[in-house]
């Protein structure tokens, strides 16, 4: 195996960045796929693997992908929530793989909300 030079250390740091991010639980953006029974039967698992593939293929290192339970809108599953740092979360509904890829490219990476698939801004109030 190759012997390292000082600058190689940073290359390894870069290559591992997504994993480090995951361990620290902090990223520039967080994407949550809702995985209630309803979501799963409507195809949420496929949405998840599509997003994961996008992250891997484009070597995105600052986005965290996670799951959560049913979002309460079973008729409009699959759903996902995109949360950019310091911005209100946006929920997207009635997803398919193509829509998920578009949302990932436009909203998650470029910061432009895809209004045509969005349900609404912000979260329900929890009290």
């Amino acid at each position: 195996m190759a012997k390292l030079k000082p600058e190689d250390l940073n290359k390894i740091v870069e290559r591992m960045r997504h994993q480090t991010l995951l361990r620290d639980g902090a990223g520039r953006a967080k994407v949550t796929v809702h995985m209630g029974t309803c979501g799963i039967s409507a195809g949420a698992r496929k949405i998840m693997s599509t997003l994961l593939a996008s992250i891997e293929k484009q070597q995105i290192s600052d986005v965290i992908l996670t799951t959560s339970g049913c979002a309460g809108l079973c008729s409009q599953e699959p759903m996902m929530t995109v949360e950019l740092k310091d911005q209100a979360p946006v929920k997207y509904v009635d997803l398919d793989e193509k829509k998920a890829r578009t949302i990932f490219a436009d909203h998650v990476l470029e910061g432009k909300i895809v209004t045509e698939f969005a349900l609404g801004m912000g979260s329900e109030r929890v009290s």
Partner: protein
Amino acid sequence: MPTDTSQIGKTKTYRAQLLICAGTGCVSNRAFKVRDALVEEIKKQDLVEEVQVVATGCQGFCAQGPIIIVQPDGIFYQMLTVDDVHLLIEEHLVKGRPVEKLMYIPSKGKPPIPKLSDIAFFSKQRLIVLKNRGLIDPEKIDEYIARDGYQALAKVLTSMTPEQVIDEIKASGLRGRGGAGFSTGRKWELAREASGNGKYIICNADEGDPGAFMDRSVIESDPHAVLEGMLIGAYAIGSEYGYIYIREEYPLAMKRLHIAIDQAREYGLLGDDILGCGFNFDVSVHRGAGAFICGEETSLIASLEGRTPEPRIRPPFPAQSGLWGKPTNINNVETWTNVPAIINRGSEWFSSIGTESSKGTKVFSVVGKVTNTGLVEVPMGTTLREIVHDIGGGIPGGKRFKAVQTGGPSGGCIPESLLDLPIDYERLAEVGSIMGSGGLIVMDEETCMVDVARYFLDFLRSESCGKCTTCREGIAAMHDIVADICNGQGKPEHIGLLQDLAEAVKDASLCALGGTAPNPVLSTLRYFNDEYEAHIKDKKCPAGVCQALIKYSIDAEKCKGCTLCSKHCPEEAITGKTKEAHIIDEEKCIKCGACRESCKFEAVLVE
């Protein structure tokens, strides 16, 4: 040869990671079985591409093991068994619903706490030495590098002179974590200034204190941090070879150390021309000879040379004449591990943590009668009360706190009235104890302090190497007197005799084993004199421990006649009819306490 490092250990992207603690404590609670079940279940649920299981080093919360942390959510699960695995994967990782019933519950009736960062045991700690614990797979060098590993080494090799490194460590105020608390920078300077070539450095990982496992955990969870510290020290001192002297009883730590060394060699971080900077250094691992005295530096060096591990008079100090007569610098595992952090973040940062005389943090293994046994790292100056009650969760079973012993077998026992003592080297010495290497044993009201003194004297008596008379004979003599007191044969003049012996052993012993051995006696005489008096004058053991001085009886009012005690009695010393009060035959009773433990009505009395 072109240096292409882009392919080394290519990383795959996952959406979640299950960090399972694979420290010795959790492993003995079957963590590997749980890990295998997790991997199996992940396959079954078709999550192999999405979720990864990572075995990490000790996370410190040993009382709750096996434990896992699910990232990026930061959810902490505890006391897992193979049976919990299906539920955990399906609920949390498929459906995204964290599983409450597997979470940590701070105390009965309180709601579970999902996040690791909210659990007091963790949130009150400050991690420098253990910063990577539970966050990296200690068997993968890339994971260490990903968290700034070996950056400090690169920094010193490319931009600092050895003298600058020494100045930085001196300015940080770092003091040895192995016991004596000597300034690490000053020690390095002495070794650097010593004349002669072929200097050695040694990492002391002998850790012979009963109940202590700080150094084991550091090596198990972050072995490269120890190596990086040694590399920096070697550069500063001008040494090309080092030894890690590790306790034979630490197989997992040893395995991880070997893996780390192999990987570091492959990356050119050990060996010749390290990082292409022209610096050469390598290490080998030496298995300890298995005695407490081997941890004492001059004995350790003797043992490394293949001689009987016996201490010798200093000076000359190892810095002048150590291994094979060469200038040698020896530091403890935790001391070495602090070094990369100081270089990365600067001496000013480090010296801003802690007290006037003691900088940085200290790792303690908290054991005994405390709810959250485990490994904790706190800033110097944290009070004993915070460690025992806030982080340790107090005394289990509603019992009262009695004392805490710091510093291992030759530390002093500190009473409740001093619980607000901020921990640092000087403050502990003032109250008759020592920092030692960080053992911390909590004792409750059912602990007899005279018996505690007897126990530690017994340990030290058998661990004394016997080379000097005061230590060999003095500790044995103290032991016999204290044992007599426990056996009801104590005489009033024993107290004065013990005091005299203790002073003599302290002053005239060759090494710090004898030098500190009297601490348990002196501190218990100082703070728990009433217990000695009760044993000697009233022939009573107030805590109900010393067998010769106690008597078991049954409270006829409380006894329901359930017969449980008589079933548990190994000597058939308890008689009585069902639903009638039972009686203990004093002649037959061997005072084992089995009846008291089995009684559900607190009807068995001991006095």
